[in-house]
């Protein structure tokens, strides 16, 4: 039988990097095909080529047996290729129906559209109210909007880029039911992921990419997670060792922390209690947007507990001292440091050099004396971070924006660790970082713990939390569950908490 989509020798070069190097791949009708690979393996480039967003340097693409040259996303859509990206492209202030109408153009009259949306969402079990505003929807519901928008023109190939990264385990289950039904109708699905268990559960075939090349194909059900990981990484997956340790004195305590609701939207914290002791790593599981940023900023001092806004309440103590009214710089001098989830623009200034970016959070740590920046010391610190965390950069004068996401992440985590904090708050420590670097970051966090620091980790990656944390809690809709030892949690119990049960 002719495959629905067939790629032969597709290559794409970006500067020095071969993002795709002679990739060949067949997706059959009605098949759920996994595209498996680490961050930076070339998955994104490949799906951009399939979606008509990027043109390959060479290679051919056949659609149902006929060679095609995709010139635009519109052409790919017309053929029957639908893409759902990892990051949603929805307008917050418009309704579901309006968002969908915008993407479809004039193909459907507005009155008929709402009916079509209801019909499609009922058929595939994607409950949606066409008249609701996007900003009222959860991440899972927003993904349904993207899916329905993609399904309305009845595509014959559906490409999903890391679709489960923002979903609770229960929502993942529901998504899989929908995807199986779509496949049963004869639609093909290209499921892009690096999550091995999901691929084993859902997919019929897997194509594994590493460093821009196809390293093998596999029947995921016939493989173990470990054998897939070997294929994906090229080496044995490293296991992080966590020595048992008795936690010491309480370094950070938060009691009854609530934040005021902001007119700009965003989550509000409701009565968060948290205690962080010396020599432990505490994990906060949960999908970003449930109060992670608000909690991170209330701890770091960017928002003050004492701010006179209705609804704000609670107490933040550092080493027993009430720091509710102290700003970022004062708390940093007391040994509290943080790595924000947003790297460029928040954790680092894009157009400044790495040396300058060390000064950003290093002023309290000796990089500024009597109002003067110690540039020599700043360059030395930046160089030390580059060495210790193997950050790939042209040097300490390289601008932050020239680093890849993973390298910048290593630099930012490394910067805060380099300044030897007693309390470290890290948001998404290994987001977008390759396995080797993730290992290094985890080891550095564990070394801090061994040195008696207290570490708080916000992460969407449950495997990461299980690997490094002593205690875990789930932050959902602004409420933090009690923090329990990591052994008392399971994926299911965390998922129930994420869903607000």
């Amino acid at each position, binding site marked *: 039988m002719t495959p629905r989509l067939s790629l032969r020798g597709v290559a794409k070069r970006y500067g020095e990097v071969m993002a795709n190097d002679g990739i060949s791949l067949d997706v059959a009708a009605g098949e759920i095909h996994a595209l498996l690979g680490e961050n930076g393996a070339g998955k994104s480039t490949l799906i951009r080529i399939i979606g008509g967003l990027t043109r390959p340097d060479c290679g051919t693409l056949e659609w149902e047996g006929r060679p095609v040259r995709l010139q635009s996303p519109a052409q790919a859509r017309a053929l029957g290729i639908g893409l759902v990206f990892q990051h949603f492209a929805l307008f917050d202030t418009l309704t579901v129906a309006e968002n969908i109408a915008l993407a479809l153009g004039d193909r459907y009259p507005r009155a008929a559209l709402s009916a079509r949306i209801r019909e499609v969402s009922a058929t595939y079990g994607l409950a949606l109210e066409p008249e609701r505003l996007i900003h009222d929807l959860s991440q899972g519901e927003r993904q349904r909007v993207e899916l329905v928008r993609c399904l309305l023109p009845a595509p014959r190939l559906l490409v999903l880029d890391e679709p489960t990264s923002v979903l609770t385990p229960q929502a993942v289950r529901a998504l899989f039911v929908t995807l199986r039904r779509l496949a049963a109708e004869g639609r093909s699905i290209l499921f892009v992921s690096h999550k091995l268990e999901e691929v084993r559960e859902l997919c019929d075939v897997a194509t594994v990419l590493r460093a821009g090349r196809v390293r093998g194909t596999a029947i995921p059900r016939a493989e173990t997670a470990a054998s897939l990981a070997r294929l994906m990484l090229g080496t044995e997956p490293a296991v992080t060792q966590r020595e048992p340790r008795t936690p010491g004195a309480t370094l950070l305590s938060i009691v009854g922390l609530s934040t005021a609701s902001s007119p700009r939207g965003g989550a509000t914290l409701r009565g968060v209690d948290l205690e962080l002791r010396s020599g432990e790593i505490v994990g906060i599981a949960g999908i970003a947007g449930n109060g992670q940023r608000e909690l991170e900023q209330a701890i770091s001092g960017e928002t003050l507990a004492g701010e006179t806004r209705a609804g704000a309440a609670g107490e933040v103590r550092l080493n027993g001292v009430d720091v509710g009214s102290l700003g970022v710089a004062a708390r940093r001098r007391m040994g509290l440091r943080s790595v924000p989830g947003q790297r460029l623009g928040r954790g680092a200034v894009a157009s400044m050099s790495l040396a300058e970016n060390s000064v*950003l959070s290093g002023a309290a740590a000796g990089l500024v004396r009597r109002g003067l920046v110690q540039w020599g010391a700043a360059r030395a610190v930046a160089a030390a971070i580059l060495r210790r965390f193997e950050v790939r950069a042209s040097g300490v004068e390289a601008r932050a924006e020239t680093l890849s996401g993973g390298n910048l992440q290593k630099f930012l985590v490394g910067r805060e660790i380099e300044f030897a904090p007693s309390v470290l708050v890290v948001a998404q420590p290994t987001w977008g970082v390759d396995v080797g670097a993730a290992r290094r970051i985890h080891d550095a966090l564990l070394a801090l713990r061994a040195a008696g620091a207290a570490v708080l980790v916000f992460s969407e990656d449950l495997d990461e939390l299980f690997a490094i944390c002593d205690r875990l809690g789930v932050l959902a809709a602004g409420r933090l569950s009690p923090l329990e030892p990591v052994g008392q949690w399971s994926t299911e119990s965390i998922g129930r908490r994420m869903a607000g049960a």
Partner: protein
Amino acid sequence: MLAMAGLVLGALGVEPLAAFRAMFVAPLDSRYGWGELLLKATPLMLCALGLAPGYRAQIWNLGAEGQLTLGAIAGGAIGAFAAPRLGVFALPSMLLAGTLAGMAWAAIPAYLRTRWSTPELFVSLMLVYVAQLLLSYLVHGPWRDPAGHNFPQSPPIPDSALLPTLADGVRVNIGFGIALALAAAAWWFQRATFASFRLSVAGLAPAAASYAGISERRNVWIAMLCGGGSAGLAGVLEVAGPIGVLQPSISPGYGFTAILVAYVGRLHPVGIVLASLLMSELYLGGESAQLEFRFPAAVSGVMQGALLFFLLGAEFFIQSRLRVTALRHP
């Protein structure tokens, strides 16, 4: 820029080359001309040096003209009424008073911004007109020289309290040296101090400034006081230099032209020194062309505007590439 200038001049019915000669060469064919160039560059340089740190932080002080006027009022008042009593301290206390008065005028928008989030852009700009009317009231009313034949002028500042000129036969005075010293200080400030680093971070990435714990309030105060202080100093240097008296008009818009100087100089002290000389040349050229060809006074304004327009345009095209694409319909 040159082509556009040529077109404008052509439209005015003048041989462009002759006009260029009159505008760019004639003003500098004498020692006196060079002196004038440096003299007019001084207030531009001072105001722009003070504005630049704020602009880097996206703090918009558009009121340097008003702060300059207040500096002139405060310094001029001491010069006109108290100079003999102060003796050798007359000039230093005039310079100090002018600087402080400029700062005080800039403190108004700074306070309103930090206390009530009032946009400093509008407040500082509107205070320009308040300052000019205040000066006009003073020289028409309470401070008018009784021996001045009813001219709206204060009593003249005695020679002993005027700035010494740099050489015979030129009007440029040690104020130019003060401006150059300030440029060196600004260069050091930008390179070495944490205060300047905080301003840059706030301008480039406000969220990163918040993460770093940089106080917006402190940034606003530092930026506004820098701008106000140096504009006030520029004002008192004018009255204690070429003008020598308080009169209704102190500046032909130096405080506004300084905004262009700051940007043409790319907010860098060395660039600002060069840009102030260029702008000063445009002022002189405009005057000389007015005399020689009876150009309207607006022509030099058009030239200044065109220069900034082309500069910003060039910067845009250096940083972005224009691509012509056809709209495709599915």
